[in-house]
């Protein structure tokens, strides 16, 4: 056992964890990637058009077309961007885990992974919460500010938005777990061999 540890340390490999832990982390990353990617896609393709007939002049009805798009709300735009960046980060981390075991920069690999994980958690939590509260205003309106609810008119838009937010929240919890695991890896890093 002692010989195996020395061998692993000599390779400069920073994953001297048991293999099962590495695969657990990888699986959780893949699921988190799927969750954030789903959230991004569902919200980015969220669009609903409704045509209302507002008046009838003679025999031709005057139609009014209303669209609900995610771009109308800055909170949803931030949501899409945050989840997109989180998906990219997860994908990058998966690639580095699988193919870039030797990549290192002055021994700071684990620290950089931990810090990047933390920033992504912060980003996704900001995006998810902004979108949740905007969706709440859309669903219930705000009587004090005279803002009418829009979910009764644009049901599909609201439903899809809800699905995206749920997917993002699931991704957020997974990313929090990943971040805790990365920090634990960092804090349990074996002491560097000093000459």
């Amino acid at each position, binding site marked *: 056992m002692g010989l195996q540890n020395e061998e692993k340390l000599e390779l400069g490999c920073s994953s001297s964890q048991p293999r099962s832990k590495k695969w657990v982390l990888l699986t959780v990353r893949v699921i988190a990637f799927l969750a954030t990617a789903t959230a991004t896609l569902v919200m980015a393709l969220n669009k609903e058009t409704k045509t209302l007939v507002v008046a009838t002049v003679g025999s031709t009805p005057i139609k009014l077309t209303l*669209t*609900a*798009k995610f771009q*109308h*709300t*800055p*909170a949803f735009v*931030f949501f899409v961007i945050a989840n997109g960046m989180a998906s990219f980060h997860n994908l990058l981390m998966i690639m580095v885990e699988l193919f870039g075991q030797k990549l290192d920069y002055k021994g700071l690999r684990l*620290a950089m992974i*931990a*810090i990047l994980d*933390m920033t992504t*958690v*912060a980003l996704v*939590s*900001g*995006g*998810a*919460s*902004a*979108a*949740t*509260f*905007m969706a*709440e*205003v*859309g669903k219930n309106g*705000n009587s*004090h*500010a*005279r*803002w*009418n609810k*829009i979910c009764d008119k644009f049901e599909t838009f609201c439903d899809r938005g809800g699905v995206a937010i749920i997917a993002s929240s699931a991704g957020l919890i997974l990313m*929090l777990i990943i*971040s*805790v695991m990365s*920090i634990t890896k*960092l*804090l349990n*890093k074996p*002491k*560097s061999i*000093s000459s």
Partner: protein
Amino acid sequence: MVKPKRLLSLLLRIIVLGATLAAVIIMATSHEKGTFFALSYEAKYSDTPAFKFFVIANAIVTVYGFLVLFIPSESQLWGLVLALDLVLTMLLISSISAALAVAQVGKKGNSSAGWLPVCGQVTKYCNQVSGALVAGFIAIITYIILLLYSIYTFLNPLLGKNG
């Protein structure tokens, strides 16, 4: 005998405590009565769930920050404090993000949804909410610095004496 590392960490925690306390107080006391086309109405922070969430989140962090100041220097609890710091940073970030989202609609309105901006009618309320958000922002930035510093000091004894 207070070590310089502990002093810096303590200083950062006091700044965070002050900022979150200020955010809670400023947001909770934002209150204005106004008239809007002969309708009189009142604007309070509790009208919007997002602002309520902001107040609650910052209140939790204030109480936690106050309690943490009393933990002795060499206690075993500091690992738990580090973990809680991460979770509370996330909570603070989501609370300010939610409050910002709703405040942005209040200031600019949302023409596609037919929501009019309300800041023109209740300017004092809007300014106070902005002040609370600024305090919350300062709290978050200081907290992130504190978190990174805690991880750095936690790591340094483990890394040995190289570099």
